[in-house]
């Protein structure tokens, strides 16, 4: 019947948490902070979102609280050690993952498999409601889907066309010059964007659990945090390309689910591998281009320990 239209809609729905989390991670990475624990961050957002939604019957409030919980969680576990105490970034990243994995299960223990209603978030796009095929494809979605797909354009504009965005890039490329030359308060900027990263990561998790899945379960993210990390690399740190990466990998998630239904010659395990393999291939390609004298795609100070006073 409408297999194509429905799969397309399902792919966009699957791409949304990837896109939200990847946008958050992009904010952090542009300022030189790599968080490998997005998975744990999303889990914290997911469990908070579901708990708040179940208690208040308001998915909007659940999504907001999930996002805020993500911001607070990332600031405490990642932001303060990395930015204020100037530790290196891999271990706090792993701490974000491990603590998120354990703590979310602990908090969500009593809410497991209780379904959440989020039908109130679904919005119809006014003009598109009347066009037959497009209507099924993109007409009726929960509002965060539209937000997620518009957001990267805003981020691209912020990074490319505003003084604020240039300052962000300056911190990521060369924090020492950003501070001494441009007088940016590097520590405060970095802390703020750890919070932003956490906000979108938590929002992504809350969206996944409250809207896309409709229930909390242990490890509900099932590796999507790592795909989000792969999406950022796949997009080579360009905001608009996040949409391409997330849509592509979201589509792959759906293809894996459809699996045998389409009778594809490629085993589903190989499709599942692709986001991660694709990220490595893109890294290699960009490195080869870098050796030919072109600018590196990654922010220069990514993963580097930065000392700053204010």
């Amino acid at each position, binding site marked *: 019947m409408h297999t194509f239209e429905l799969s397309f809609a399902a792919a966009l729905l699957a791409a949304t948490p990837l896109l939200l989390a990847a946008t958050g991670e992009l904010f952090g990475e542009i300022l030189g902070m790599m968080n490998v624990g997005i998975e744990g961050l999303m889990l914290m957002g997911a469990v908070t979102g579901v708990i708040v939604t179940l208690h208040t019957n308001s998915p909007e409030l659940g999504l907001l609280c999930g996002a805020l919980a993500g911001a607070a969680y990332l600031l405490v576990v990642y932001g303060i050690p990395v930015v204020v105490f100037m530790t290196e970034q891999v271990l706090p990243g792993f701490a974000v993952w491990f603590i998120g994995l354990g703590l979310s299960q602990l908090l969500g223990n009593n809410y497991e498999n209780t379904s959440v209603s989020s039908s109130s978030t679904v919005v119809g796009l006014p003009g598109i409601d009347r066009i037959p095929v497009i209507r099924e494809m993109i007409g009726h979605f929960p509002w965060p889907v539209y937000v997620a797909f518009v957001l990267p354009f805003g981020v691209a504009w912020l990074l490319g066309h505003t003084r604020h965005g240039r300052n962000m890039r300056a911190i990521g490329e060369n924090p020492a010059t950003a501070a001494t030359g441009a007088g940016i308060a590097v520590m405060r900027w970095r802390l703020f964007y750890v919070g932003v990263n956490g906000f979108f990561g938590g929002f992504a998790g809350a969206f996944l659990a409250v809207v896309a899945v409709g229930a909390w379960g242990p490890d509900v993210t099932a590796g999507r945090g790592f795909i989000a990390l*792969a999406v950022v690399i796949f997009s080579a740190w360009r905001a608009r390309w996040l949409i391409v990466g997330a849509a592509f990998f979201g589509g792959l998630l759906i293809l894996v689910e459809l699996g045998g239904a389409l009778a594809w010659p490629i085993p589903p395990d190989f499709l599942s591998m692709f986001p991660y393999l694709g990220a490595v291939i893109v890294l290699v390609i960009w490195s080869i281009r870098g*050796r030919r004298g072109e600018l590196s795609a990654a922010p220069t100070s990514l993963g580097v320990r930065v000392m700053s006073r204010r």
Partner: protein
Amino acid sequence: MSTGAASTAARQSRKSWTVVRGAPSPKRSWAYRIVAIFAVIAGSALYLVLTIHQPDILGVVLRESFATPASLDEWVVLATPFFLTALAVLIPLRVGLWNIGGEGQFFAGAWLATGFAFWLTHLTGGLLIPGMLVAGALGGALWAAIPTLARVYLNVNEIISTLMLNVVMVFWVAYWLVGSWQYGGSTGGTLQSRIIPTQAQLPLLHVAGGLDSGVIIALVLTALVGLYLHYSTFGYQSLLVGSGRAVALYTGVRIRRVQMISMLAAGALAGVAGVLQLTGNSYQLTPGLSNNTGYLGIAVAILAGNSIWGLVVMSGLLSTIMLVGQNAQMYGVSSDAPFIVIGVLLLLNALGDALSQYRVMRLDRRDVSSEAEGDDLVEAEGHSTAGSGAPGLEMVRDALEAG
């Protein structure tokens, strides 16, 4: 006289307690680490008391974890893979590389060893297990070779590439578990392989508790690696490479070669860990074979702080945490609770390492103010040896590579 006394009094009053930043101190770092470990143990004990309300059940959990004949065996079995997966992180860290890929290399080793056992079952019993160990080491090393070559020759960030390749390998293993290797033939429902032949299973040291002889292999390998790193030229060279590109270039160490060997050895050791888990106590390949030991090895290696003795002790500590977690799970404690403990431990350890650079000293105020002026707003350090050399040394490097 009176003016002199006044000036000394003024000088004394100018002295004040100040925080001074200097080089990181391993001694202070260890002090913080030990405080962190005790804090975490106290925290988890408190958590257990609060979660398991009845004191008698708490006693049962602790007795099951520490005091039954089987508990010691379980503890050793849990610690066995940690020795090797932690070495797989510790060796590359010495040369300034992060090997996050222990999990993938573990599965690469286990996968190749499973294949070896299925394809060459007819090999005489004495040769099958050594063959599997070699196959596992080869599998792990080959899987580590991809990110290593990319890092050494193309400067691809090894943290991201090894992390991504872990997941790829897990799906690769899952692919093989659907089909001819599958338990109960290709129609079986669960994702696990057939049981490996009995001559491919390691003999048990202690049948009652399920203690297998894998721990001997793991400890011997750990001791050999420790001795080699301590006494060999290579061990010294790896320390030079880890101290920074400039040092290595000045002393004429071939950086790429040392980094390659370190990463491949790390992959091989993680691969052997996979084989030991397979032949020692699982006897079949499953996607849950590693039980996250590849990732937990990172925690062990970091807590060990570049010391083989530390590595052995910390393997025991993590094994204890996992064991108590397992036993407490039957009484309503969440199965992922140990991850919180380990995450907090990692975090406190990172904080302690950062704090170990600071000392509280009683200083003259003039010195303090001049120090503050000298300490500029921002400085950046590389996480690895890349790019930390002086500009002139780049020329030396180019000359060396050309010649």
